[in-house]
């Protein structure tokens, strides 16, 4: 099965615009993690901070463009992986290895379709 692992952390940890010294640290860890995943990693990316986010909202058929992320929260979507795992247990085991510098959460979502 294919799963998306959505990484939620407080981006303030990484400094303004994710340019602080800790971003190097976590990027290094992600590179090691991705290498360890090998062919089970189907895709993924780290995202720039929510200060760079733009949201297009559809409401009653009308599209409006907004500055900022779609929802304000304590932890923000900071990146994701698309992985291949045999079942939820393997996906959970992989999610437990995703680097998180301080507190955070990995949401595991099965991907629609075959």
């Amino acid at each position, binding site marked *: *099965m294919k*799963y998306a692992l959505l990484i939620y952390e407080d981006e303030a940890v990484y400094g303004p615009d994710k340019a602080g010294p800790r971003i190097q640290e976590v990027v290094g860890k992600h590179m090691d993690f991705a290498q360890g995943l090998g062919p089970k990693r189907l895709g993924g990316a780290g995202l720039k901070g929510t200060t760079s986010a733009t949201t297009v909202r559809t409401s009653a058929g009308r599209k409006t463009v907004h500055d900022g992320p779609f929802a304000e929260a304590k932890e923000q979507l900071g990146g994701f992986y698309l992985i291949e*795992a*045999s*079942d*939820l*247990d393997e*996906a*959970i085991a992989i999610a437990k290895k995703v680097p998180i510098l301080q507190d955070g959460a990995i949401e*595991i979502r*099965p991907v629609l379709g075959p």
Partner: protein
Amino acid sequence: MNGQALERVFREASRRIIAALAAQFRDLGLSEDAFAEACLRALRTWPERGVPDDPTAWLYRVAYRIALDALRARRRSRENVHKASELIDANPTPEEQMLDDSRVIPDERLRLILICCHPAVAPDARAALTLRLVCGLTVTEIAHAFLLEEPTLAQRLVRAKHKIAESGIPFDLPSKEHWPVRLEAVLSTLEVAYSKAHEDAAGAGRHTGFAAEILHLSKVMTELLPDAGEAYALAAVVRYAEARRPARVDAEGVMIPLSLQDPRHWRRDFIADADRLLARAVDLAPESIRTLQAQLQAAWCARASLNGPAPWPHVLELYDRLLALRDDPIVRLNRIVALAEVVGADTALVQLHALEASKLAEFIPYQAVRADLLARSGRIDEARAAYAAVLALKPAPAEQRWLSRQLSQLGGRGDRPLPADLRPDR
């Protein structure tokens, strides 16, 4: 075979068949539906052609083919191939009917219970799902056990099954490192299931059949996790309780409270087995809730005859320790029963009224203890009303007969103290 007998056959069969189908087809909903359809076909064909020698094997064969058919149909519609539906004779061949069900149906209950108790399943749905799929209880029965509205419970079950199907929860036995996490969920599930099995003292109720199953599953857990003290404790509790089953009702089908049961009728083999399991639990998990619960059972089962004193002071002491670990109304209620024996009914009644009555109003043991304590305190009119209230809650038949007898004796010989443990032997 009448309707009731058929229902019993279906229920017995459902426990193993749904588990076996689920392991095979990796789809809980499909397995449940296929089994239900097989039961419908049995209702149509058995009255005409007679009940097969091995009804369980028949039902498994039919359900298996129905599930296979449904899967094929599903695949065809997905591939958009318009073929006339294959007509498969879902009735088993005579050879198949001769097969013994233990050879036909693989025992997959443990696998199924682990799926139901996966950490990704909402905690409040795990026990309910296990009772439904592993033990074959109806939604109505489970809703009753959990004090929930039926639609609420049904929705919870649907959501849990959907989660299992959609999220890719594996149907294979988990590897060793996943075991400890699953243990707690499995043990509490077995506890709830057993308490349902134990509810009807007469043992004539629908739940008795799966008491044997809980005995088996609880032992299997200790074999799978030989270092888990709580698994031994639960296996011990179940055996102590089962040991007393032969002594729980008298010849007229009236419940006998624990303190009045003749220990000579208890099953010594179960007690010896439980003692061994408890010793392991005490070694591995001395101060755990389940070990204390097993020690409570052991205190009673150590009694050799009715001539010896009932172990009330020891029981009270154990409930005090249990209360320090788990302060809930049920532990408090049980402690009050022991308190009435050690200190007196008046003191116990004061503590009983300190419990949150609104939440316990429909809890049969609470009302039964209340009625007894009122009677023993000489408040006969209130006791009479309390007995009427508890009888209105429709207790199991043996308990109901006991309570009716207590009620009829009220005000007769007022000097005779009645035993406090009106709670049925649980």
